[in-house]
């Protein structure tokens, strides 16, 4: 059963196509990598899938909801970690988690337990009462990751999941994501980092020029992802990239 379905999606800004004819499916229990170069349309697509942007045309279904019709219901169900997103400056992590939990209608006793669980998972226990402006960028990223999982959503969207995290926490996040999809949940990761996609995902969709140009099941594929990426992306979106002698 599809957790995410996208058909003929288009979105343009001031006449420039950011997404043009995007289409793909992501099943339950998949850790799907949305891989593409900068400017390929990844973030715009995520924003449409999470009800942050209205598409120009096309059909989208996320966890049984249509984000273009009822964006709030979509956002109620899913978890979102935006690229470069930072938590509100003058909150502490504990206050922000409480605030997000209240917005999501979680019970008080569940809130406290989940905050403690996530603080432990991401090593934030001794930072729960520190004002966000005084946290490092990596710690702020941890807060943003934790807030997306507090309500135990069936689907999460993460834009550049491992950005700013130290190797130890990267491993923790990877393990967390693997456990998460093992429970028949769906993770949609957007990245331009091939190693991250290869390391984390069960399947990837390669995006170029606003659409999916190739899909690969990483459990069965034998061709290196880098080769697939370079050949498909360069074909779909020729770029003026200097040739490097290696």
């Amino acid at each position, binding site marked *: 059963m599809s957790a995410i379905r996208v058909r003929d999606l288009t979105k343009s800004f001031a006449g420039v196509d950011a997404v043009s004819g995007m289409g793909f499916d992501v099943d339950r229990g998949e850790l799907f990598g949305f891989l593409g170069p900068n400017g390929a349309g990844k973030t715009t697509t995520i*924003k449409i899938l999470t009800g*942050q*942007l209205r598409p120009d045309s096309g059909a989208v279904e996320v966890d049984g909801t249509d984000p273009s019709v009822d964006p*709030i219901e979509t956002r109620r169900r899913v978890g979102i970690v935006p690229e470069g*997103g930072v938590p509100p400056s003058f909150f502490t992590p504990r206050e922000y988690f409480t*605030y997000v939990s209240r917005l999501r209608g979680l019970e008080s006793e569940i809130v406290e337990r989940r905050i403690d669980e996530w603080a432990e998972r991401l090593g934030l226990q001794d930072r729960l009462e520190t*004002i966000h*402006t005084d946290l490092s960028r990596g710690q702020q990223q941890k807060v943003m990751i934790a807030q*997306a999982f507090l309500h135990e959503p069936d689907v999460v969207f993460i834009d550049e999941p491992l950005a700013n995290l130290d190797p130890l926490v990267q491993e923790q996040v990877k393990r967390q994501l693997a456990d998460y999809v093992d429970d028949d949940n769906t993770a949609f990761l957007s990245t331009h980092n091939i190693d991250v996609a290869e390391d984390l995902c069960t399947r990837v969709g390669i995006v170029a020029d606003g659409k999916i140009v190739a899909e690969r099941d990483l459990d069965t594929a034998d061709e290196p992802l880098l080769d697939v990426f370079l050949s498909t992306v360069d074909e779909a979106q020729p770029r003026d990239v200097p040739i490097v002698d290696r």
Partner: protein
Amino acid sequence: MTNASEAPADGATECTEPGVGTGHTETPPIRTQLAVTARALAREEWRVHTTLFGGYRFLTMPILITLFAGGTAWLLTETGTAPDAVLIGIHVCALAFGLYAGTAGFAGSAMLEDVFGTHQFLLGVADTLPLSRRLFLGLFLVKDALFYGCFFVLPMAVGAVGVSGFSGATPISLVGQWLSLWLVFVGGMAVTVGAISARTNGVPTWAIAAVALLAAVGAWASGWLDGGTVLVTAHSPVSMAILALSTVLVGALALAAYKPTHVPPSRTAPERFEGIRRLLPTDDPLVAKALLELGRSSGGFAKPFVSVGLLFGLVAGSLGIVESITGVAPAPGIFFGGILGVSAFTTYNWLTQFDDVSDYLVLPVSVVDVFRAKQLAFLFVGLPTAGLPYLLAVVWFDATPLDAIAGGAVLVGYSGYYYGLTVALAGFSPNEFLFDGGRFAAFGGGVAIALVPTLLAAFVLTPPSVLSTVLLVCASALLAGVGFVLSTRAATYWADRSMAGTA
């Protein structure tokens, strides 16, 4: 990386430019570094205004300032205010603007981040460049002083020059006015930078505020203020030299004391979000969030009170002058109710300093809900913020009961109207008024439509009758309704823009 087609055939590294490719570069002389940085900063300033504020639309701002300063100066002198008093007033405005502009030294602070959204500025990456942060900040402030000197202070001078009438000496008078206003403006900047420098040396904010208060009271009590007013009205070479020297001295001391490596200690805080939420009559977490951010940021809940306090002090202080000019004491209730209503703008501004619409798009809330929450937060903060000074004015200036009722209605109704007007024109970014001539003019016009007739009424209805009180209450209710419609429609408008990706 080397393009293969351009690489030397034998693969050898050919480096004719000194330093390139060796890992070591010759540091250019400081003069070159400063010149390059100054050019980059100037270019950036220009791009900020042309990119963020709608092409060349920001160029309408100097014209508006000229018209506003000229119109006000003309009105005041025509109604009998001494020209020197008008000039002093304009200098006070320049000083206040300089104090505000000096906050650029806080670059990277939450406030400036919010004004400019997610944009990164050259000053923000100064630490990555081989130039001292102190020098960089100095250059940045010089650039600001020159830019605002041309785009904001010069129009003030042009507007003010009419005070003494036009003659053959006008061009010289204009240059004198400009220089004097500019020096006062730069002095204000230098004082703010001085306060920032004190902070970077670990001086607590309360101590800085206490020193500022003591200095202000001391200057007033010792007669130094009178000396200051002589300085800005004399326009003699000596007065200019004293002004220039004091400005340079304060600026140089501030920069010398500035500690670029200062890192504030890590701050922790007890859980407050739930506490605030429980105190409110609404269960909406968005309202509690807005109030927590206001209370937790620098200055806490005192910020909106200080903004209104300044407005109140200015109006209360000038009431005697107005009375001596017109020969009539205005009805204090209506007069203060009308003026304090404008504080809706500053209060809403404080409530939107710490977030952006996009912050909420990852949460299950609509943009309309966010605006509704801001409206409620505005109610909780705005009522005491404007209400307390209003009550003080009513008691202090002996308003009649009917005047107090009429003024109270005006205060509430007009606040609602100004709030709606601000939300409709600026959405979540009321600070952009400072740079957008079109919206500033629309806002000014919207305020004047309500305020000017009300202030005139305050001079005619002394004291107001039952009938005039009823009429004022009705007018206030009508304006509050207009404000409500404006803010409700604005919420839908900004939500729609956000979803379309054009906000």
